[in-house]
């Protein structure tokens, strides 16, 4: 495999949910329809869309958290759609996710350190002592203290919870991370810290990332390439510098227009 080949490629990906219509009859709801894109090594790919566009479902299918109805997802050339549960588990240490609300992704009754360390023992990647040392290192790297290891998730602020979520995602040394609206619930100054941290980590660890968001300013800041989803279809994709300056589709234009910049525009009355 040549180093220039994309780390992750998605082709003709489709997800159909069975739903009930107004009359209680079974019906199909196509959440993701024929979506394809590639994510280059060490880059961040932005998946843009409004709520209900299918961006989160796509992200979950890439991670194997949601079974694709049809289509293909390859990681380093290996097909992931249709993998057995066992093979999928092996793949999972290479790919991780940071959720919008990391607080709710932690068990409130166990210490956060033990939860961050859990995948290491699950995958038999380290002994207990090694796992603890590794988690302490990671906590330090994401800007937390060693004393935080034995605390519970409710003791942390929103920004700290997001740092914990990032630490947990990184503990298995993955190559690929999905970020699902990682800063949507954060204050402006905390968002800046988290975005800077993600960029630093990406450089240090040569991480490849998929950023799911409806915020185009985030995409401009983080992503080299991006794609726009509308009602499950990928309507446009390409280098961010083109995509956001010369949008072709209506939905992209609409999203670009909807960005409120913190400067006064000339047209403002």
């Amino acid at each position, binding site marked *: 495999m040549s180093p220039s080949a994309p780390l992750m490629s998605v082709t003709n990906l489709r997800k159909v949910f069975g739903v009930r219509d107004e009359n209680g009859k079974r019906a199909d709801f196509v959440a993701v329809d024929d979506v394809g894109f590639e994510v280059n090594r060490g880059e961040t790919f932005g998946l843009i869309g*409004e*709520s209900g566009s299918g961006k989160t479902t796509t992200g979950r299918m890439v991670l194997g958290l949601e079974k694709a109805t049809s289509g293909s997802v390859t990681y380093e050339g290996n097909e992931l759609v249709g993998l057995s549960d066992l093979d999928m588990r092996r793949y999972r240490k290479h790919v991780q996710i940071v959720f919008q609300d990391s607080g709710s992704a932690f068990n409130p009754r166990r210490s956060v350190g033990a939860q961050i360390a859990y995948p290491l023992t699950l995958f038999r990647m380290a002994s207990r002592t090694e796992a603890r040392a590794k988690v302490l290192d990671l906590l330090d790297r994401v800007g937390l203290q060693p004393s935080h290891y034995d605390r519970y998730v409710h003791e942390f602020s*929103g920004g700290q919870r997001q740092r914990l979520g990032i630490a947990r995602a990184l503990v298995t040394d993955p190559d690929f991370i999905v970020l699902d609206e990682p800063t949507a619930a954060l*204050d*402006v*100054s*905390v*968002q*800046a*810290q988290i*975005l*800077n941290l993600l*960029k630093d980590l*990406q*450089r240090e660890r040569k991480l490849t990332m998929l950023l799911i968001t*409806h*915020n*185009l*300013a*985030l995409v*401009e*800041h*983080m*992503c*080299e390439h991006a794609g726009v989803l509308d009602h499950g279809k990928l309507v446009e994709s390409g280098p*961010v510098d083109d995509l*956001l300056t010369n949008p072709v589709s209506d939905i992209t234009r*609409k*999203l*670009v*227009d*909807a*960005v*409120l*910049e*913190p*400067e*006064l*525009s000339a047209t*403002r009355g």
Partner: protein
Amino acid sequence: MTDAMALEVKDLSVDFHTDGGVVHAVRAANISVREGAILGLVGESGSGKSVTSLAVLRLLGTTRAKITGGQILFRGENLLDKTEKEMCAIRGPHIGMVSQNALSALDPSFTIGAQLVEVIRLHQGVDKATARIKALEALDLVALPDSKRRLKAYPHELSGGQRQRVVIAIALSCRPELLLADEPTTALDATVQKQILDLLLDINAELGTSILLVTHDFGVVAHVCTDVTVMRRGDVLESGPVEQVLTRPQHPYTQGLMRAVPHLHLDEATRSVPRADRRLFEFRTEDKETLDVA
């Protein structure tokens, strides 16, 4: 717009008595909304911005929250001297409220129409038929399509943006002089956020309603506000016309916050830096100490 004030908060202090001691949520804050203006009250979590807006309506609820000083002047009277009964006659007809979470502001067991009619009948003392007509007008005002049918809809049948329109319709149904909007668009998609903000602009222009808009987003401020007040940890740091505060912020905190926001349209200097090297402004621990002293 005149120089008269729709709302003047003078030296307002609010304390919370918690198990861990007294928290000064708002400290001698001065905030004014000019008549016909839209004031953006900006701050991060814990700045006291929402507490201030709740204090205006005397809705601080818990027995732990105490207004320890100051005045809230509305139509020449101090709202802090009002009895609860007098406040009831002010909330709704004179000061309307739009909260962040429209779903929790609406009762899931009643139709939109019933909730609008209730408010209109309570405050305007009209009969049911008249109230229904007024309810329809209110929904038309906020440009909710198919308003007649929507009267019979329950909150769960509407999208987030539609629900927020309904909440705004309820707040405006009695034509208050002042509207308090606490993060009205934070939970919404970017495109829907813009529609709701444009709606607030239309209402401000057509009805002359003065608006106090609580937000953490300078983008929202730049889009709709005429004036800005910046709060941090209970203190008002800076106030002024939006042109002044956004183009020449005086306080280091305001300057830092504005540089911490990611932009869509970059200047040449920023664009010339490779994307992997671009970083947003972060307050460092030293900065925080300086800010605390200042």
